[in-house]
């Protein structure tokens, strides 16, 4: 933004750019007004009601919110579960994809094959993915514990253990580090001019020096982007818990979104669920804004 000390009016060029800005962004705005506004407003309205989708809503003001924050142990439990999951998962997943992207950024022969192999796990979803991991993590005959047994380590009960269940899901998540996330990092890596690496070569730096001083800073904006996104996604974890553990054992995998789902579609308490949703939005918003504040200091934008 310019400061308005000397200019009495914006130059025509700036005005034109502003107008075009609105034009270019118009598709999203129109889309939002048509497809987004009504549902969002309604869901907020429902959060102020008792509502079971098939009958009329009953306005109860902030009742749902008060109950959630003051009287619902599952609200806090699910926040705790989700937070823990996010804090463990996001760094691991970002690091994993980044390292893999660096590895795959080599034009060696057959790299296309490798990249495809790494990508495949990320397209397996839903029931198949869950069945696969229920089998892999089976404490008695699953792959993981079989391998651990070779080293004489008695494996944990994974998904059946209240202490390991969340980590089991993080593990599941790690399997898709070769997916879209890695592609994005890869695309970003492609954009780093080779000349920069040559400078490090001349200075006598090795692989790690290149990584630390060139790679990471140059794509820090993309890393930042994905960290923000992954936090948002992690907070909304649902499918794995729904299909595999149903929130157990001992509610250790009762994630926020799962609890929301139970309230919305099992109990038909759509009002309560909407309140849960809006609180989640608030939480994620705050966390994201915090990240942006930190991000401004840490991220390097080439374009600026």
């Amino acid at each position, binding site marked *: 933004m310019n400061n308005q000390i000397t200019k009495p009016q914006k130059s025509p060029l700036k005005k034109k750019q502003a107008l075009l800005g609105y034009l270019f962004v118009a598709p999203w705005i129109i889309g939002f007004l048509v497809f987004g506004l009504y549902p969002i407003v309604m869901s907020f309205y429902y959060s102020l009601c008792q509502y079971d989708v098939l009958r009329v809503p009953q306005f109860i003001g902030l009742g749902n919110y008060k109950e959630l924050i003051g009287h619902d142990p599952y609200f806090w439990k699910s926040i705790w579960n989700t937070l823990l999951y996010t804090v463990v998962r996001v760094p691991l997943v970002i690091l994993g994809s980044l390292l*893999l992207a660096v590895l795959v950024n080599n034009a*060696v022969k057959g790299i296309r094959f490798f990249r495809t192999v790494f990508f495949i796990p990320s397209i397996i979803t839903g029931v198949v993915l869950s069945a696969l991991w229920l089998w892999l993590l089976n404490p008695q005959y699953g792959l993981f514990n079989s391998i651990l047994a070779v080293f004489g380590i008695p494996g944990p009960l994974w998904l059946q253990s209240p202490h390991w269940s969340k980590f089991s899901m993080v593990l599941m998540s790690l399997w898709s580090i070769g997916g879209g996330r890695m592609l994005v990092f890869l695309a970003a890596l492609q954009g780093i001019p080779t000349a920069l690496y040559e400078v490090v070569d001349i200075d006598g730096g090795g692989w790690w020096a290149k990584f630390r001083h060139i790679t990471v800073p140059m794509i820090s904006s993309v890393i930042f982007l994905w960290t923000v996104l992954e936090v948002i996604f992690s907070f909304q974890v649902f499918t794995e818990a729904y299909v595999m553990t149903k929130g157990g054992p001992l509610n250790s995998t009762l994630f926020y979104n799962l609890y929301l789902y139970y309230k919305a579609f099992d109990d038909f308490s759509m009002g309560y669920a909407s309140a849960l949703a809006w609180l989640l939005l608030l939480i994620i918003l705050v966390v994201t804004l915090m990240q942006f504040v930190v991000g401004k200091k840490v991220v390097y934008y080439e374009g600026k």
Partner: protein
Amino acid sequence: MKRPNFKTSRTFVTYLLLICAAVVLILPFIWIISTSLKGSESIFAIPPQWIPKDLHWDNYAKVFTKMPFFVYLKNSVFISVMTILGTLISSSLVAYAFACLKWPGRDWLFIFVLGTMMLPAQVTMIPVFVLYKQFGWLNTFKPLIVPAFFGGGAFNIFLLRQFFLTIPKELFEAARLDGCSEFRIYWKIVLPLAKPALATVAILTFMMTWNDFLGPLIYLSDKLKGTLALGLAMFVGQYQTEWGVLMAASVLVMLPVIVLFFLFQKYFIRGFMMSGIKG
């Protein structure tokens, strides 16, 4: 500086790491393929059989009889292609506005756009459904395709915006001084430079649409309007799940994505963008 055999040892290490990673990541997928060839007796046998004793190719045949595979394939392709088209166009336009143009309220609107990703879809699902009912779009593909043309989703906008931000301002300034219209800059300069990012968006959108189950579930009622993802769900029942056939179906459904990915790789070839500009 002495660096004996640097190139070959580096290549060796690279291959070693690649192979290790590949083995770890592909193993579960191999189990899926192997299960797809098993009869129901041996699927969960202990110890686990990696290579089935009898190869049940009929599992694959059953996929075609139990669901209208080709009809679903056609539908899935149609929906995916249209969605990718709409997403690429609209999200790149919108991202351009956020990254390359200056206008009042830009950054606030961006945060707002981001905010729309933070509301769980479960709660807007019902009002959205009612909305589409009012439009008369139920039991058509419209709810699945049309929104893609209006921004393509906050996620893609965010992705492209971050990417566009890495394009040096000098390019824009030079082009503007030359009298290029913004649209031309967008079309001729930014888009070509952003090919890897666009390819990524295309692939991610494809994957998401290909695997999308909920949308088709609630918007499509005619049996012949289903998608492949929906078809997969048909194999899961209350007590009986035909695991072998389900796995076979999954493999078939995954195949197009894998093939497409393998082919699209050329957009990720090193040196495609920018290497000449700065050095």
